[in-house]
């Protein structure tokens, strides 16, 4: 008995990987591979789409449209994330429990606010958007709130974890000097977590730009809207132009936040661009963006705080909610066994899609990650650097950033041209977006390997494959599995979105029910979706515990 326990403990990571692999293989069986999975003309379409990459439409009109749409996308991202930071700060502080000295109050507050934050981020921003449009109408606020809530939830959770992890000694010192809880927050906690907060927020800002781009689905005209229109006209050349603009915007933010993070970590005040202090420049840029974005939203987009709190909105919100609950209706879907059965089948399909997606992403990552790790490509991790390593390194790094800069939904809209509707195109679209992220994280994990044990294995007589199995794999496996589990959670949340464009699962049914105004069905789908996300949270927590 003790022996088998020991065995499981000893090989927990290998066993877990094996289990995950089995589940992935099992999920492959859910697709009928005998069937032709690609449209009869899918290959030709794929060729057309791929050819168009090399001849994007750079005519004056399209460029003008691109600039405007890029600006709009950026404006909404800035507005959304700035609101998210405020939400995250308040909820994060409250849920970290640092404001309370009494143990019971602390526990209750932490519990309640953690749950709220969890709920906020468990629902995808596009679903929030749809709900807000139904309740508030097509105002800029619908989009901004739809961004602010899930991002507030994610940032808030991270802020709260950062605050809880703050080292105790300086805090105790402040406490004993008689500082109030609020003073401790501002003089003790905040200065210590400032750096991490900024760098994580910058990373989230990059994601918000992508989310803002797909807000077009509720009628916000950004880059996603243009991509959607061009796809509807099968004008692939235009599609790529807009995608290139989106990718450039993401790359710009990525570079900027990388530089800023490095400067902040090294506390280097002297870095400059064009003779301007980079820190000051960043601050100025952020300030300009904030002011001009909100100005744009209020002045040009005509957002109006007062009409937002109008009686009309109150009336429609109430109406919308009561329709979701199904007040006064006798055909309430969530009380109907038949509907439940249907929804559960779709839920399983959605789960299946997420497993396929993470499986494909992992395969893509494993194939590409080795040449992308800096310490392997420059030969510092034992192997000799070959001339082609550098080229391979740059190409794959570019593919990584390109694939992750394009949101899942847009990948799905493109993939659906080639594959027949169903969960496979959805899984492929999700995988296209996520393998870049997974690849980047995993490459960084390899770069972080401690070279000393590996060198020592070499002195003990290990050849390259032996070094891989004894030194490199045990070191990175835990990180890889952690990343894969984490990405899987994110993917599951997004499966509902790719369903909108015909990729099956709960998302497709959600779109249909929305089109037919079957509100109680929407409630049922949302319940299933939230249960699924909740289940995934618990499961991934368990898996993380196993490999600890």
């Amino acid at each position, binding site marked *: 008995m003790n022996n088998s326990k*020991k065995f499981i*403990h*000893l090989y927990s990571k290998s066993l877990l990987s094996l289990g995950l692999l089995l589940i992935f293989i099992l999920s492959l069986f859910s697709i009928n591979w005998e069937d032709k999975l690609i449209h009869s003309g899918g290959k030709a379409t794929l060729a057309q789409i791929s050819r168009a990459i090399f001849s994007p439409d750079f005519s004056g009109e399209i460029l003008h449209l691109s600039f405007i749409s890029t600006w709009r996308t950026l404006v909404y991202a800035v507005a959304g994330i700035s609101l998210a930071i405020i939400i995250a700060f308040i909820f994060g502080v409250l849920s970290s429990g640092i404001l309370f000295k009494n143990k019971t109050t602390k526990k209750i507050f932490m519990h309640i606010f953690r749950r709220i934050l969890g709920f906020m981020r468990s629902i995808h921003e596009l679903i929030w958007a749809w709900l807000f449009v139904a309740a508030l109408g097509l105002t800029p606020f619908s989009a901004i709130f739809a961004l602010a809530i899930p991002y507030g939830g994610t940032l808030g959770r991270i802020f709260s974890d950062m605050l809880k992890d703050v080292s105790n000694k300086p805090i105790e010192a402040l406490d004993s000097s008689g500082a109030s809880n609020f003073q401790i927050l501002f003089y003790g906690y905040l200065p210590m977590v400032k750096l991490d907060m900024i760098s994580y927020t910058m990373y989230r800002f990059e994601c918000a730009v992508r989310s803002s781009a797909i807000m077009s689905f509720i009628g916000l005209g950004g880059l996603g809207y243009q991509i959607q229109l061009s796809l509807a006209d099968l004008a692939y050349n235009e599609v790529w132009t807009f995608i290139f603009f989106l990718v450039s915007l993401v790359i710009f933010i990525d570079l900027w936040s990388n530089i800023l993070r490095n400067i902040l970590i090294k506390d280097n005040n002297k870095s400059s661009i064009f003779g301007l202090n980079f820190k000051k420049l960043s601050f100025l840029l952020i300030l300009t963006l904030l002011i001009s974005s909100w100005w744009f939203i209020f002045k040009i987009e005509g957002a109006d705080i007062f009409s937002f709190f109008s009686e009309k909105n109150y009336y429609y919100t109430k109406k919308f909610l009561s329709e979701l609950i199904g007040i006064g209706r006798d055909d309430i879907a969530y009380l109907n066994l038949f509907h439940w059965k249907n929804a559960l089948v779709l839920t399983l399909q959605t789960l299946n899609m997420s497993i396929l997606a993470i499986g494909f992403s992992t395969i893509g990552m494993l194939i590409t990650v080795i040449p992308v790790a800096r310490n392997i490509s420059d030969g510092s991790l034992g192997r000799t650097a070959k001339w082609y390593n550098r080229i391979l390194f740059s190409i794959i790094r570019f593919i990584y950033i390109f694939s992750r800069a394009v949101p899942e939904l847009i990948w799905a809209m493109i993939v659906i041209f080639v594959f027949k509707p169903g969960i496979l195109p959805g899984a492929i679209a999700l995988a296209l977006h996520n393998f870049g992220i997974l690849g980047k994280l995993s490459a960084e994990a390899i770069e972080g390997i*401690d070279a*000393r*044990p590996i*060198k*020592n*294995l*070499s*002195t*003990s*007589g*290990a*050849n390259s*494959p*032996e070094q891989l*199995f*004894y*030194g490199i794999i*045990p*070191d990175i*496996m*835990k990180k890889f599995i952690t990343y894969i589990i984490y990405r899987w959670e994110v993917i599951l949340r997004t499966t509902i979105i790719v369903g909108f464009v015909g990729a099956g699962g709960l998302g497709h049914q959600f779109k249909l029910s929305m089109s037919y105004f079957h509100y109680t069905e929407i409630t049922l789908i949302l319940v299933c979706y939230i249960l699924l996300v909740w289940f995934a949270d618990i499961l991934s927590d368990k898996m993380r515990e196993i490999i600890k």
Partner: protein
Amino acid sequence: MLKKEIISINNISKEFKGKKALSSLSFNIQKGELIALIGSSGSGKTTLLNIFSSSIDPTQGEVIIDGKGINEYKSNKVFAKKVGMIRQQFDLVEELPVIHNVLAGRLSQWSTTKSILSLLIPQDKTLAIKSLKRVGLEDKLYEKTSNLSGGQKQRVALARLLVQNPEIVLADEPVASLDPTRSEDVLSLLVSLAKEENKTLITSLHSVKYAKKHFNRIIALRNGKIFFDLPTKDITESRLEDLYSLQELDNNE
């Protein structure tokens, strides 16, 4: 028993980016000698050990290991049977269980397939248990290495060395990050194991006290040159004072 020269170096120098780390060192080491390398940090101890372990090549000069030039050892598997190295506690793979870290010492004997199979079904398990017993850690066979204390990790590294069973054991500051009791513990274990099997042991040390207590020959380095090379019994306090005081003067130049 006839004395046998197991290591001999002839006029070796090493430069790192134009900076001299070692300059024109020559000496011989007999089989079974217990040698301590002393000198303050930057004096070239680690560079010298790394040259012996063939991790780096000297810029100049030749190194003969057991009658053969060091570069004539084509495969690191053959070389691993001649020379084994133990560094600070960082040379273990933290995520592997103790048994695999110990059995990594067998990699020089095993084929690649066998080594990978061993990760699933440990091979030569009795050997691992035997050597862990000798370092007093037989109960930690399946423990994850990262859960061990610094001293325990160092003893696991010793157990790996026992399994690898090289003729020459190099140790680079093996006790630098341990507290005094643990240091004493690990050092005496290292020396007694070397003595029992008539191995040649070359250890770099910070502490002159340990060097004098456990080793029979001490080589002192300063700025990449040999400051003295004497049997332990001939070392006087004034010599040692010279080594370290001169050092300070040099640094002030």
